[in-house]
C-alpha cells in the first residue's frame, strides 16, 4: 500500500458538545484507501509556530464519503485547523501506520473502548467489524456528559453503547473500566482500545487478567510519521526495545507490549 501526499477539500465541519470537531474532507485527486487505526499527517498552513505536520487518526474513510477526522483543538495549530472554513484545501500525507487487526470471524463479540479524541479510530473500526459480522459493543469514557453526548450516533452499527463519566452526569460514574461489562470482559473475543494512556493501561490490565485478545493504539510526539526521524519511539518489550509508533504502530497487540504496562 503506497503512501501519498494529497490535497483534500473540507466539505463538512461541526463541533461536538465536547468542543472536539468532526471534519469531513473529499480528496482533490486520487487518494489511496485508509484502514481503521491508521492516521494522516496534515500540514496546517499559516500556523506560525507549527513547523511540522500534525498526526491525526482516521475517524472514517470511504470512497463515497471521503475522509472524516475527529479533531481536538488543543494548541494554536489544531485550533486554526478546526476553524477552517468549508471549502478550505489542506495537504495531507496518508495512509500512515499499522492499523487494527480486523481479521475476525463472523459472530465474534468485540468491545471497543475509547475516551476523548481517542474514540476517533474506533468509529471506522466499528463499521468495519460490524460489516464482517461482529457484534460490537462500545465503551466510552468522559469527564462529563458533554464528552459523551453526540458520540453514540457515530457508532450506528454498534449493538450497545456504554458510557462512564467522572462526575456521573452520563452512564456509570467513574472511569471506563468501572462500567460493569469490564467485570466479565471474557464475554468478548476481542477488546480494542484508544484513549488516554492511563485508560489504555487499565483496559490492557483487565484484558491480560481476563486473557482476552486486546489491541491498543499508542500516541507519541511525531515529526515525520514515516519511521525516519525516530522521535516517536516506545519501548515495547525487552527484545525489540524502542520501536517507532508511527510505523510499527500506532496499534499494538498488548502481548507485544510487555514493557508497557
Amino acid at each position, binding site marked *: 500500500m*503506497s*503512501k*501519498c*501526499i494529497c490535497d483534500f477539500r473540507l466539505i463538512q465541519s461541526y463541533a461536538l458538545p465536547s468542543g472536539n470537531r468532526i471534519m469531513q474532507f473529499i480528496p482533490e485527486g486520487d487518494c489511496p484507501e485508509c484502514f481503521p487505526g491508521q492516521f494522516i499527517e496534515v*500540514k496546517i498552513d499559516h500556523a*506560525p*509556530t*507549527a*513547523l*511540522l*505536520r500534525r498526526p491525526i487518526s482516521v475517524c472514517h474513510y470511504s470512497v463515497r464519503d471521503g475522509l472524516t477526522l475527529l479533531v481536538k483543538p488543543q494548541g494554536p495549530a489544531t485550533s486554526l485547523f478546526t476553524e477552517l472554513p468549508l471549502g478550505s484545501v489542506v495537504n495531507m*500525507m496518508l495512509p500512515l501506520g499499522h492499523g487494527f487487526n480486523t481479521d475476525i470471524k463472523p459472530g465474534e463479540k468485540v468491545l471497543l473502548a475509547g475516551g476523548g479524541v481517542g474514540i476517533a479510530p474506533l468509529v471506522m473500526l466499528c463499521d468495519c467489524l460490524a460489516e464482517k459480522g461482529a457484534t460490537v459493543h462500545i465503551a466510552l469514557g468522559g469527564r462529563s456528559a458533554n464528552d459523551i453526548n453526540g458520540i453514540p450516533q457515530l457508532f450506528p452499527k454498534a449493538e450497545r453503547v456504554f458510557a462512564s463519566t467522572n462526575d456521573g452526569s452520563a452512564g456509570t460514574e467513574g472511569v471506563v473500566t468501572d462500567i460493569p461489562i469490564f467485570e466479565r470482559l471474557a464475554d468478548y473475543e476481542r477488546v480494542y482500545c484508544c484513549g488516554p494512556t492511563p485508560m489504555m493501561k487499565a483496559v490492557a490490565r483487565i484484558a491480560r487478567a481476563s486473557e482476552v485478545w486486546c489491541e491498543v493504539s499508542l500516541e*507519541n*510526539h*511525531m*515529526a*515525520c510519521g*514515516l*519511521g*525516519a*526521524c*525516530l*522521535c*516517536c*519511539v*516506545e*519501548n515495547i518489550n525487552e527484545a525489540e*526495545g*524502542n520501536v517507532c509508533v508511527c510505523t510499527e504502530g500506532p496499534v499494538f497487540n498488548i502481548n507485544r507490549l510487555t514493557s508497557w504496562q
Partner: protein
Amino acid sequence: MAINLSVDLGAGLVLKNPVLTASGTFGYGHEFSDFIDLDKLGGFIVKGTTLEPRQGNPSPRMAETPMGMINAVGLQNKGVAYFVDHIYPTLTRFDSEVIVNVSGAKLSDYVAVAEALAPLDKIHAIEVNISCPNVKAGGMAFGTTAAGAAEVTSAVRKAWNKHLMVKLSPNVTDITEIATAAEASGADSVSLINTLLAMDIDVERRRPRLSTITGGLSGPAVRPVAVRMVWQVAKRVKIPVVGLGGICSADDALQFIMAGATAVQVGTANFIDPTVTIRIIDGITDYCHRHNISDINSLRGII
C-alpha cells in the same frame, strides 16, 4: 540551455547534483521511496551508525519550537554489523551516492565502524559525526576542540581510504579552527552544521519537554547561523564544504552554495514534505535558467 548541476567533492565522491539528505532525517532512503525517485538525489546519508546496537534515549525525544525542532534521538541504530548484513544489500541498487554517517563513544569505535564499512563497494564516502549533542560520551565531545576533531579524523583516516567527510558541531567559539584541524588531519570534506544544543520547557507541567533535558535544535530557525558558519569555514579551508541547517527551498540551498558550500544536505524539511529534495533540485535548475547560469559550480562562494 544545458545546466551542469554535478559537483565533485573530491576523493572519488562526485554527485549528480548538490542535494544530499542529512543523516537521521531520511532513514535508509526506502521510507521515502513512495514519494520520490531516490535516484534523482545527489545522494543520501544514512543514519548514524555505531559499532554496537544502540537503543537511543527514552521518550519524549522531540519538541517543536518556533520554526525549529529539538530532538534527542541519541543515535538509535542496530549497529554496523546489522547495517552491513541487512541494510546495505537494500542500498546497492541505487544510482545515487549512499554515504554512511559514523558515530561512536570512543575513538576505537569510530575506527571499527569505518573498517567494517570499508569493503562495501557502493559506499564511496562516510560522514564522521563528531558533533552529536545527544549522547553522553563521544559525539560532540570530540567536535568541540580542535584536538578532539584532529584525533578522530586521523584515526578514521587510517582505516578508510575513500572519501572522508567530517560533520562539525556549531556549539563552538570558532568553527574554522575545528574545520582546519579536520582538514589538516586528512578530511576530504567537512559538513556543517550539526544541531545547536537547545532546551524547551513545558511551563504548565514544569518539566523539560525532552527526556534528556537538552537536545539538538534544527530547522529553519538555525539557518542564519549555519549560513554564517559555512561562509566562515569556506573562506578558511581548501577542502569542499557541505552546508546544512534549515534548508527548505532552492533559495535556502543557494544561500549555502553562494556562502561557499559545494553541496548541501536537507534535513528537517524531509519530515514536513518528503518530496522537498526534488523540489529543491528542480528549483535550483530553474534558478540557473532564469539567471543564465550554465554550471552550478560558478555560484559557489560568490559572497
